[in-house]
Protein backbone atom coordinates (compact mmCIF):
# COMPACT_ATOMS: atom_id res chain seq x y z
CA UNK A 1 0.00 0.00 0.00
CA UNK A 2 2.78 2.38 1.01
CA UNK A 3 4.82 1.54 -2.08
CA UNK A 4 1.74 1.99 -4.29
CA UNK A 5 1.17 5.44 -2.76
CA UNK A 6 4.86 6.30 -3.17
CA UNK A 7 4.86 5.22 -6.82
CA UNK A 8 1.63 7.08 -7.58
CA UNK A 9 2.97 10.19 -5.85
CA UNK A 10 6.22 10.01 -7.80
CA UNK A 11 4.33 9.53 -11.08
CA UNK A 12 2.04 12.49 -10.35
CA UNK A 13 5.03 14.62 -9.39
CA UNK A 14 6.86 13.67 -12.64
CA UNK A 15 3.75 14.47 -14.69
CA UNK A 16 3.33 17.88 -13.08
CA UNK A 17 7.03 18.64 -13.58
CA UNK A 18 6.86 17.58 -17.26
CA UNK A 19 3.75 19.72 -17.73
CA UNK A 20 5.57 22.70 -16.21
CA UNK A 21 8.61 22.11 -18.45
CA UNK A 22 6.35 21.95 -21.52
CA UNK A 23 4.73 25.28 -20.69
CA UNK A 24 8.12 26.86 -19.99
CA UNK A 25 9.29 25.60 -23.40
CA UNK A 26 6.12 26.94 -25.05
CA UNK A 27 6.55 30.29 -23.31
CA UNK A 28 10.15 30.57 -24.54
CA UNK A 29 9.01 29.71 -28.08
CA UNK A 30 6.19 32.28 -28.10
CA UNK A 31 8.50 34.88 -26.57
CA UNK A 32 10.95 34.48 -29.45
CA UNK A 33 8.41 34.82 -32.28
CA UNK A 34 8.47 38.63 -32.49
CA UNK A 35 12.28 39.08 -32.28
CA UNK A 36 12.56 36.22 -34.82
CA UNK A 37 10.45 38.14 -37.33
CA UNK A 38 12.88 41.04 -37.35
CA UNK A 39 15.80 38.99 -38.74
CA UNK A 40 15.75 38.28 -42.47
CA UNK A 41 18.01 35.24 -42.12
CA UNK A 42 15.69 33.75 -39.52
CA UNK A 43 12.59 34.36 -41.62
CA UNK A 44 14.25 32.59 -44.56
CA UNK A 45 14.23 29.41 -42.46
CA UNK A 46 10.41 29.45 -42.56
CA UNK A 47 10.04 28.57 -46.27
CA UNK A 48 11.68 25.14 -46.21
CA UNK A 49 9.54 24.27 -43.19
CA UNK A 50 6.39 25.45 -44.97
CA UNK A 51 7.30 23.15 -47.83
CA UNK A 52 8.07 20.18 -45.56
CA UNK A 53 5.03 20.67 -43.35
CA UNK A 54 2.50 22.05 -45.83
CA UNK A 55 3.20 21.13 -49.43
CA UNK A 56 4.21 17.55 -48.76
CA UNK A 57 1.19 16.98 -46.49
CA UNK A 58 -1.32 18.25 -49.03
CA UNK A 59 -2.05 14.94 -50.82
CA UNK A 60 -2.64 12.97 -47.62
CA UNK A 61 -4.90 15.67 -46.15
CA UNK A 62 -6.91 15.95 -49.39
CA UNK A 63 -7.34 12.16 -49.57
CA UNK A 64 -8.53 12.18 -45.95
CA UNK A 65 -11.09 14.91 -46.63
CA UNK A 66 -12.32 13.25 -49.82
CA UNK A 67 -12.97 9.86 -48.22
CA UNK A 68 -14.58 11.41 -45.15
CA UNK A 69 -17.01 13.17 -47.48
CA UNK A 70 -17.74 9.92 -49.33
CA UNK A 71 -18.34 7.97 -46.11
CA UNK A 72 -20.52 10.67 -44.55
CA UNK A 73 -22.73 10.74 -47.64
CA UNK A 74 -23.02 6.94 -47.78
CA UNK A 75 -23.98 6.78 -44.09
CA UNK A 76 -26.63 9.50 -44.35
CA UNK A 77 -28.10 9.34 -47.85
CA UNK A 78 -30.56 6.47 -47.44
CA UNK A 79 -31.96 7.81 -44.16
CA UNK A 80 -32.45 11.24 -45.72
CA UNK A 81 -34.03 9.76 -48.86
CA UNK A 82 -36.46 7.78 -46.71
CA UNK A 83 -37.41 11.00 -44.90
CA UNK A 84 -37.68 12.95 -48.16
CA UNK A 85 -34.76 15.16 -47.18
CA UNK A 86 -32.19 13.93 -49.71
CA UNK A 87 -31.91 17.44 -51.21
CA UNK A 88 -30.41 18.57 -47.88
CA UNK A 89 -27.52 16.13 -48.17
CA UNK A 90 -25.05 18.99 -48.77
CA UNK A 91 -26.03 20.55 -45.42
CA UNK A 92 -25.14 17.41 -43.47
CA UNK A 93 -21.84 16.89 -45.27
CA UNK A 94 -20.65 20.48 -45.38
CA UNK A 95 -21.47 21.35 -41.76
CA UNK A 96 -19.95 18.13 -40.46
CA UNK A 97 -16.81 18.52 -42.49
CA UNK A 98 -16.25 22.26 -42.15
CA UNK A 99 -17.08 22.61 -38.46
CA UNK A 100 -15.69 19.39 -37.11
CA UNK A 101 -14.28 16.58 -39.22
CA UNK A 102 -12.09 18.71 -41.49
CA UNK A 103 -10.05 20.41 -38.76
CA UNK A 104 -9.95 17.38 -36.46
CA UNK A 105 -8.98 14.82 -39.11
CA UNK A 106 -6.51 17.17 -40.80
CA UNK A 107 -5.06 17.87 -37.35
CA UNK A 108 -4.79 14.16 -36.53
CA UNK A 109 -3.20 13.39 -39.89
CA UNK A 110 -0.69 16.20 -39.36
CA UNK A 111 0.01 15.10 -35.78
CA UNK A 112 1.02 11.72 -37.21
CA UNK A 113 2.76 12.81 -40.36
CA UNK A 114 4.31 16.17 -39.46
CA UNK A 115 4.51 15.77 -35.67
CA UNK A 116 6.25 12.41 -35.99
CA UNK A 117 8.75 13.76 -38.51
CA UNK A 118 9.49 16.86 -36.40
CA UNK A 119 10.04 14.84 -33.23
CA UNK A 120 12.25 12.35 -35.07
CA UNK A 121 14.31 15.12 -36.71
CA UNK A 122 14.84 17.19 -33.56
CA UNK A 123 15.24 14.07 -31.40
CA UNK A 124 18.01 12.81 -33.69
CA UNK A 125 19.64 16.25 -33.58
CA UNK A 126 19.42 16.08 -29.79
CA UNK A 127 21.02 12.65 -29.39
CA UNK A 128 23.77 13.44 -31.94
CA UNK A 129 24.67 16.64 -30.03
CA UNK A 130 23.56 18.93 -32.87
CA UNK A 131 21.48 20.97 -30.39
CA UNK A 132 24.56 21.39 -28.18
CA UNK A 133 26.53 22.31 -31.30
CA UNK A 134 24.07 25.13 -31.96
CA UNK A 135 24.38 26.37 -28.38
CA UNK A 136 28.15 26.09 -28.53
CA UNK A 137 28.10 28.47 -31.51
CA UNK A 138 26.12 31.01 -29.49
CA UNK A 139 22.85 30.25 -31.27
CA UNK A 140 19.54 29.62 -29.60
CA UNK A 141 18.09 26.25 -30.74
CA UNK A 142 14.55 27.45 -29.99
CA UNK A 143 14.96 30.47 -32.28
CA UNK A 144 16.74 28.53 -35.02
CA UNK A 145 14.79 25.27 -34.97
CA UNK A 146 11.53 25.56 -33.04
CA UNK A 147 10.13 28.96 -34.06
CA UNK A 148 10.11 28.30 -37.85
CA UNK A 149 8.58 24.83 -37.36
CA UNK A 150 6.00 26.16 -34.90
CA UNK A 151 5.01 29.03 -37.22
CA UNK A 152 4.82 26.73 -40.25
CA UNK A 153 2.44 24.45 -38.31
CA UNK A 154 0.32 27.41 -37.14
CA UNK A 155 0.10 28.94 -40.63
CA UNK A 156 -0.38 25.80 -42.67
CA UNK A 157 -2.69 23.64 -40.59
CA UNK A 158 -5.62 26.03 -41.30
CA UNK A 159 -4.76 26.12 -45.00
CA UNK A 160 -4.58 22.34 -45.18
CA UNK A 161 -7.87 22.17 -43.29
CA UNK A 162 -9.51 24.29 -46.00
CA UNK A 163 -8.29 21.83 -48.65
CA UNK A 164 -9.64 18.97 -46.52
CA UNK A 165 -13.01 20.78 -46.26
CA UNK A 166 -13.28 21.38 -50.00
CA UNK A 167 -12.48 17.76 -50.84
CA UNK A 168 -14.92 16.55 -48.16
CA UNK A 169 -17.80 18.56 -49.62
CA UNK A 170 -16.84 17.34 -53.08
CA UNK A 171 -16.77 13.71 -51.85
CA UNK A 172 -20.28 14.16 -50.44
CA UNK A 173 -21.43 15.58 -53.77
CA UNK A 174 -19.92 12.63 -55.66
CA UNK A 175 -22.02 10.12 -53.70
CA UNK A 176 -25.17 12.23 -53.49
CA UNK A 177 -25.48 13.64 -57.01
CA UNK A 178 -23.97 11.25 -59.59
CA UNK A 179 -24.56 8.04 -57.56
CA UNK A 180 -27.87 8.58 -55.73
CA UNK A 181 -29.38 11.12 -58.11
CA UNK A 182 -29.79 14.05 -55.73
CA UNK A 183 -30.35 17.30 -57.63
CA UNK A 184 -27.07 19.11 -58.30
CA UNK A 185 -28.75 22.50 -57.78
CA UNK A 186 -30.27 21.39 -54.47
CA UNK A 187 -26.98 20.02 -53.15
CA UNK A 188 -25.10 23.28 -53.71
CA UNK A 189 -28.01 25.61 -52.95
CA UNK A 190 -28.77 24.07 -49.54
CA UNK A 191 -25.06 23.87 -48.80
CA UNK A 192 -24.50 27.56 -49.49
CA UNK A 193 -27.60 28.51 -47.47
CA UNK A 194 -26.64 26.45 -44.43
CA UNK A 195 -22.91 27.10 -44.42
CA UNK A 196 -22.03 30.46 -42.87
CA UNK A 197 -18.75 32.31 -42.72
CA UNK A 198 -18.91 31.64 -38.99
CA UNK A 199 -18.71 27.86 -39.63
CA UNK A 200 -15.63 28.31 -41.79
CA UNK A 201 -14.10 30.64 -39.20
CA UNK A 202 -14.80 28.08 -36.44
CA UNK A 203 -13.12 25.27 -38.36
CA UNK A 204 -10.12 27.36 -39.37
CA UNK A 205 -9.64 28.85 -35.90
CA UNK A 206 -9.64 25.35 -34.40
CA UNK A 207 -6.97 24.39 -36.92
CA UNK A 208 -4.77 27.29 -35.72
CA UNK A 209 -4.81 25.87 -32.19
CA UNK A 210 -4.29 22.31 -33.45
CA UNK A 211 -1.31 23.47 -35.52
CA UNK A 212 0.18 25.26 -32.50
CA UNK A 213 -0.27 22.14 -30.38
CA UNK A 214 1.31 19.87 -33.00
CA UNK A 215 4.31 22.19 -33.43
CA UNK A 216 4.94 22.75 -29.73
CA UNK A 217 4.37 19.17 -28.57
CA UNK A 218 6.46 17.54 -31.31
CA UNK A 219 9.35 20.00 -30.90
CA UNK A 220 9.25 19.66 -27.11
CA UNK A 221 9.34 15.86 -27.34
CA UNK A 222 12.26 16.03 -29.78
CA UNK A 223 14.21 18.40 -27.53
CA UNK A 224 13.64 16.22 -24.47
CA UNK A 225 14.02 12.71 -25.84
CA UNK A 226 16.28 10.15 -24.22
CA UNK A 227 19.49 8.92 -25.75
CA UNK A 228 19.62 6.35 -28.54
CA UNK A 229 17.31 5.14 -31.24
CA UNK A 230 14.88 3.80 -28.64
CA UNK A 231 14.68 7.24 -27.03
CA UNK A 232 13.87 8.90 -30.35
CA UNK A 233 11.28 6.21 -31.19
CA UNK A 234 9.62 6.57 -27.81
CA UNK A 235 9.56 10.37 -28.15
CA UNK A 236 7.83 10.06 -31.55
CA UNK A 237 5.16 7.76 -30.12
CA UNK A 238 4.62 9.99 -27.08
CA UNK A 239 4.52 13.07 -29.31
CA UNK A 240 1.83 11.58 -31.55
CA UNK A 241 -0.32 10.26 -28.68
CA UNK A 242 -0.08 13.54 -26.75
CA UNK A 243 -0.79 15.57 -29.89
CA UNK A 244 -3.76 13.38 -30.81
CA UNK A 245 -5.33 13.58 -27.35
CA UNK A 246 -4.63 17.32 -27.13
CA UNK A 247 -6.46 17.86 -30.42
CA UNK A 248 -9.55 15.98 -29.18
CA UNK A 249 -9.57 17.75 -25.81
CA UNK A 250 -8.99 21.17 -27.36
CA UNK A 251 -11.69 20.46 -29.93
CA UNK A 252 -14.23 19.90 -27.17
CA UNK A 253 -13.42 23.10 -25.30
CA UNK A 254 -13.07 25.28 -28.41
CA UNK A 255 -16.42 23.96 -29.75
CA UNK A 256 -18.09 24.77 -26.41
CA UNK A 257 -16.67 28.29 -26.50
CA UNK A 258 -17.64 28.83 -30.15
CA UNK A 259 -21.19 27.58 -29.53
CA UNK A 260 -21.51 29.93 -26.57
CA UNK A 261 -20.33 32.89 -28.60
CA UNK A 262 -22.62 32.04 -31.55
CA UNK A 263 -25.77 31.58 -29.46
CA UNK A 264 -25.11 34.74 -27.44
CA UNK A 265 -24.75 36.84 -30.63
CA UNK A 266 -27.15 35.26 -33.15
CA UNK A 267 -29.27 32.94 -31.02
CA UNK A 268 -30.15 29.34 -31.87
CA UNK A 269 -30.85 28.55 -35.55
CA UNK A 270 -32.01 25.33 -37.19
CA UNK A 271 -30.15 24.17 -40.28
CA UNK A 272 -33.11 22.45 -41.97
Amino acid at each position, binding site marked *: MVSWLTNTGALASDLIAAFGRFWAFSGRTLGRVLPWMTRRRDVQRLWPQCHAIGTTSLPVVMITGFFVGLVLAIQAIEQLMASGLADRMGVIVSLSVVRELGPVLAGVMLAGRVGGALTAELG*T*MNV*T*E*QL*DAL*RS*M*GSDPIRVLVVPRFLACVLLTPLLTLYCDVLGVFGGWLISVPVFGVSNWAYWNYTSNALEMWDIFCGVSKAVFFGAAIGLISCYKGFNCRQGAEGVGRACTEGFVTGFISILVMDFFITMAQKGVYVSIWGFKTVF
Partner: protein
Amino acid sequence: MNENHDIIVELRNVHKRFGPLKVLQGVDLKLQRGRTTVVIGESGTGKSVLIKHMMGLLRPDSGEIYVESERIDHLREKELVKVRQRFGYLFQMSALFDSMTTGQNIAFPLLEHTDYNDREIERIVAEKLELVGLNGSQDKMPAELSGGQRKRVALARAIAMNPQIVLYDEPTTGLDPIRADTINDLIIKLKHEIKVTSVVVTHDMASAFKVADRILMLHEGKFIAEGAAEDFRRSTEPRVRRFVNGQSTPDEA
Protein backbone atom coordinates in the same frame (compact mmCIF):
# COMPACT_ATOMS: atom_id res chain seq x y z
CA MET B 1 54.10 39.59 -16.96
CA ASN B 2 51.89 38.48 -14.08
CA GLU B 3 51.10 34.77 -14.39
CA ASN B 4 47.34 35.47 -14.04
CA HIS B 5 47.42 37.49 -17.27
CA ASP B 6 48.17 34.25 -19.07
CA ILE B 7 45.17 32.43 -17.59
CA ILE B 8 42.37 32.39 -20.13
CA VAL B 9 39.97 29.97 -18.41
CA GLU B 10 39.79 29.10 -14.74
CA LEU B 11 37.63 26.62 -12.84
CA ARG B 12 37.47 26.90 -9.06
CA ASN B 13 36.19 24.02 -6.92
CA VAL B 14 33.61 22.93 -9.50
CA HIS B 15 31.11 20.25 -8.45
CA LYS B 16 28.55 18.61 -10.72
CA ARG B 17 26.22 15.69 -10.18
CA PHE B 18 23.54 14.05 -12.34
CA GLY B 19 20.99 12.53 -9.96
CA PRO B 20 22.89 10.29 -7.56
CA LEU B 21 26.00 10.25 -9.80
CA LYS B 22 28.74 12.63 -8.63
CA VAL B 23 30.70 13.50 -11.78
CA LEU B 24 32.90 16.43 -10.79
CA GLN B 25 33.95 16.66 -7.15
CA GLY B 26 35.87 19.86 -6.62
CA VAL B 27 37.78 20.46 -9.83
CA ASP B 28 40.33 23.30 -9.95
CA LEU B 29 41.90 24.12 -13.30
CA LYS B 30 43.74 27.02 -14.94
CA LEU B 31 44.22 27.09 -18.72
CA GLN B 32 47.18 29.03 -20.00
CA ARG B 33 46.78 31.11 -23.13
CA GLY B 34 48.19 29.59 -26.30
CA ARG B 35 48.93 26.20 -24.77
CA THR B 36 47.40 22.79 -25.36
CA THR B 37 46.05 21.10 -22.25
CA VAL B 38 45.05 17.46 -22.51
CA VAL B 39 42.64 15.91 -20.03
CA ILE B 40 42.83 12.12 -19.87
CA GLY B 41 40.77 9.67 -17.90
CA GLU B 42 38.63 6.58 -18.21
CA SER B 43 35.33 6.72 -20.07
CA GLY B 44 32.59 8.14 -17.87
CA THR B 45 34.88 10.09 -15.54
CA GLY B 46 33.40 13.43 -16.60
CA LYS B 47 35.92 14.73 -19.14
CA SER B 48 33.25 15.92 -21.59
CA VAL B 49 31.20 17.30 -18.69
CA LEU B 50 34.28 19.28 -17.64
CA ILE B 51 34.79 21.02 -20.97
CA LYS B 52 31.07 21.67 -21.42
CA HIS B 53 31.28 23.73 -18.20
CA MET B 54 33.99 25.93 -19.70
CA MET B 55 31.63 27.50 -22.22
CA GLY B 56 28.44 27.33 -20.19
CA LEU B 57 26.84 24.36 -21.96
CA LEU B 58 26.50 22.89 -18.46
CA ARG B 59 26.27 24.80 -15.19
CA PRO B 60 28.08 23.66 -12.05
CA ASP B 61 26.12 22.74 -8.92
CA SER B 62 28.74 24.74 -7.03
CA GLY B 63 32.05 26.39 -7.81
CA GLU B 64 33.08 29.21 -10.11
CA ILE B 65 34.13 29.43 -13.75
CA TYR B 66 36.01 32.38 -15.24
CA VAL B 67 36.74 33.15 -18.89
CA GLU B 68 39.22 36.03 -19.37
CA SER B 69 38.62 36.94 -15.70
CA GLU B 70 34.84 37.24 -16.26
CA ARG B 71 32.73 34.93 -14.14
CA ILE B 72 30.38 33.00 -16.44
CA ASP B 73 28.75 30.23 -14.39
CA HIS B 74 25.79 32.39 -13.36
CA LEU B 75 25.20 34.07 -16.75
CA ARG B 76 21.94 33.57 -18.63
CA GLU B 77 21.88 31.90 -22.07
CA LYS B 78 21.60 35.27 -23.79
CA GLU B 79 24.60 36.63 -21.90
CA LEU B 80 26.61 33.51 -22.75
CA VAL B 81 26.40 34.18 -26.50
CA LYS B 82 29.39 36.57 -26.42
CA VAL B 83 31.35 34.18 -24.20
CA ARG B 84 30.70 31.23 -26.52
CA GLN B 85 31.93 33.16 -29.53
CA ARG B 86 35.41 32.97 -27.99
CA PHE B 87 35.20 29.18 -28.13
CA GLY B 88 35.17 26.53 -30.81
CA TYR B 89 33.94 23.07 -29.84
CA LEU B 90 34.75 19.90 -31.74
CA PHE B 91 32.13 17.36 -30.70
CA GLN B 92 32.93 13.69 -30.25
CA MET B 93 30.49 12.60 -32.98
CA SER B 94 31.22 15.76 -35.02
CA ALA B 95 27.61 17.01 -34.61
CA LEU B 96 27.44 18.35 -38.16
CA PHE B 97 23.97 19.49 -39.21
CA ASP B 98 22.74 16.58 -41.36
CA SER B 99 20.42 18.69 -43.47
CA MET B 100 23.12 21.16 -44.52
CA THR B 101 26.08 20.85 -46.87
CA THR B 102 29.63 21.06 -45.59
CA GLY B 103 29.83 24.69 -46.73
CA GLN B 104 26.53 25.60 -45.05
CA ASN B 105 27.71 23.96 -41.82
CA ILE B 106 30.85 26.08 -41.74
CA ALA B 107 28.96 29.21 -42.81
CA PHE B 108 26.35 28.76 -40.08
CA PRO B 109 28.10 30.64 -37.23
CA LEU B 110 29.14 33.39 -39.68
CA LEU B 111 25.54 33.87 -40.82
CA GLU B 112 24.40 33.90 -37.21
CA HIS B 113 26.86 36.39 -35.79
CA THR B 114 28.35 38.52 -38.56
CA ASP B 115 27.18 40.84 -41.32
CA TYR B 116 29.50 39.36 -43.95
CA ASN B 117 28.05 39.19 -47.44
CA ASP B 118 27.76 35.90 -49.34
CA ARG B 119 31.08 36.38 -51.15
CA GLU B 120 33.00 37.00 -47.90
CA ILE B 121 31.37 33.98 -46.29
CA GLU B 122 32.27 31.79 -49.27
CA ARG B 123 35.87 32.98 -48.98
CA ILE B 124 36.06 32.18 -45.27
CA VAL B 125 34.47 28.75 -45.80
CA ALA B 126 37.02 27.94 -48.54
CA GLU B 127 39.87 29.19 -46.32
CA LYS B 128 38.82 27.03 -43.36
CA LEU B 129 38.32 23.98 -45.55
CA GLU B 130 41.79 24.47 -46.98
CA LEU B 131 43.20 24.73 -43.46
CA VAL B 132 41.77 21.28 -42.61
CA GLY B 133 42.81 19.83 -45.97
CA LEU B 134 39.38 19.47 -47.58
CA ASN B 135 39.49 22.03 -50.36
CA GLY B 136 36.52 22.08 -52.67
CA SER B 137 34.18 19.91 -50.58
CA GLN B 138 31.73 22.73 -49.84
CA ASP B 139 28.80 21.04 -51.59
CA LYS B 140 29.12 17.59 -50.01
CA MET B 141 26.55 16.44 -47.50
CA PRO B 142 27.86 15.14 -44.13
CA ALA B 143 26.51 11.66 -44.99
CA GLU B 144 28.89 11.52 -47.98
CA LEU B 145 31.98 12.07 -45.79
CA SER B 146 34.10 9.52 -43.94
CA GLY B 147 34.47 9.72 -40.14
CA GLY B 148 37.81 11.52 -40.41
CA GLN B 149 36.49 13.99 -42.98
CA ARG B 150 33.49 14.73 -40.79
CA LYS B 151 35.82 15.51 -37.88
CA ARG B 152 37.82 17.84 -40.09
CA VAL B 153 34.70 19.63 -41.34
CA ALA B 154 33.50 19.92 -37.74
CA LEU B 155 36.87 21.41 -36.86
CA ALA B 156 36.59 23.88 -39.76
CA ARG B 157 33.16 24.90 -38.40
CA ALA B 158 34.56 25.19 -34.86
CA ILE B 159 37.23 27.65 -36.01
CA ALA B 160 35.03 29.57 -38.49
CA MET B 161 34.71 32.51 -36.09
CA ASN B 162 38.44 32.50 -35.26
CA PRO B 163 37.94 31.48 -31.63
CA GLN B 164 40.57 32.04 -28.95
CA ILE B 165 39.96 28.65 -27.38
CA VAL B 166 39.16 25.33 -29.08
CA LEU B 167 37.74 22.45 -27.05
CA TYR B 168 38.28 19.01 -28.57
CA ASP B 169 36.02 16.25 -27.25
CA GLU B 170 37.62 12.87 -28.07
CA PRO B 171 38.94 14.14 -31.43
CA THR B 172 40.50 10.81 -32.48
CA THR B 173 37.90 8.37 -31.16
CA GLY B 174 36.57 6.04 -33.84
CA LEU B 175 39.30 6.87 -36.36
CA ASP B 176 42.01 4.58 -37.71
CA PRO B 177 45.56 5.45 -36.51
CA ILE B 178 46.45 7.32 -39.70
CA ARG B 179 43.30 9.47 -39.70
CA ALA B 180 43.77 10.00 -35.95
CA ASP B 181 47.28 11.28 -36.59
CA THR B 182 45.94 13.69 -39.23
CA ILE B 183 43.68 15.19 -36.56
CA ASN B 184 46.62 15.40 -34.13
CA ASP B 185 48.63 17.27 -36.78
CA LEU B 186 45.71 19.65 -37.29
CA ILE B 187 45.51 20.40 -33.56
CA ILE B 188 49.22 21.26 -33.58
CA LYS B 189 48.87 23.26 -36.81
CA LEU B 190 46.01 25.36 -35.40
CA LYS B 191 48.01 26.05 -32.27
CA HIS B 192 50.90 27.41 -34.30
CA GLU B 193 49.02 29.08 -37.17
CA ILE B 194 46.10 30.74 -35.40
CA LYS B 195 47.53 30.71 -31.87
CA VAL B 196 44.54 29.05 -30.23
CA THR B 197 44.42 27.78 -26.69
CA SER B 198 43.35 24.15 -26.84
CA VAL B 199 41.79 21.69 -24.44
CA VAL B 200 41.79 18.11 -25.66
CA VAL B 201 39.76 15.48 -23.86
CA THR B 202 40.89 12.00 -24.82
CA HIS B 203 41.76 8.50 -23.73
CA ASP B 204 44.03 8.03 -26.73
CA MET B 205 47.50 8.23 -25.13
CA ALA B 206 49.33 8.44 -28.46
CA SER B 207 47.30 11.54 -29.28
CA ALA B 208 47.78 12.97 -25.78
CA PHE B 209 51.55 12.56 -25.89
CA LYS B 210 51.76 14.11 -29.36
CA VAL B 211 49.68 17.27 -28.86
CA ALA B 212 49.99 18.08 -25.17
CA ASP B 213 51.94 20.87 -23.56
CA ARG B 214 50.43 19.72 -20.29
CA ILE B 215 48.41 16.65 -19.31
CA LEU B 216 45.95 16.25 -16.46
CA MET B 217 44.35 13.01 -15.39
CA LEU B 218 40.75 13.04 -14.15
CA HIS B 219 39.76 10.21 -11.85
CA GLU B 220 36.53 9.94 -9.84
CA GLY B 221 35.73 13.60 -10.35
CA LYS B 222 39.13 15.03 -9.36
CA PHE B 223 42.49 15.60 -11.00
CA ILE B 224 44.94 13.07 -9.63
CA ALA B 225 47.99 13.88 -11.77
CA GLU B 226 49.38 16.78 -13.74
CA GLY B 227 52.52 17.28 -15.78
CA ALA B 228 54.20 17.20 -19.16
CA ALA B 229 53.99 14.17 -21.46
CA GLU B 230 57.35 12.95 -20.19
CA ASP B 231 56.16 13.09 -16.56
CA PHE B 232 53.26 10.81 -17.46
CA ARG B 233 55.50 8.38 -19.33
CA ARG B 234 57.70 8.07 -16.25
CA SER B 235 54.95 8.25 -13.65
CA THR B 236 55.03 5.69 -10.85
CA GLU B 237 51.53 6.54 -9.61
CA PRO B 238 49.69 3.20 -10.02
CA ARG B 239 46.44 4.65 -11.46
CA VAL B 240 48.36 6.77 -13.97
CA ARG B 241 50.58 3.84 -14.96
CA ARG B 242 47.61 1.54 -15.47
CA PHE B 243 45.85 4.12 -17.66
CA VAL B 244 48.91 5.04 -19.71
CA ASN B 245 49.78 1.39 -20.29
CA GLY B 246 46.17 0.32 -20.79
CA GLN B 247 46.13 -2.29 -17.98
CA SER B 248 42.93 -3.31 -16.26
CA THR B 249 42.81 -4.36 -12.60
CA PRO B 250 41.48 -7.80 -11.64
CA ASP B 251 38.27 -6.04 -10.41
CA GLU B 252 37.72 -4.54 -13.85
CA ALA B 253 38.36 -7.77 -15.76
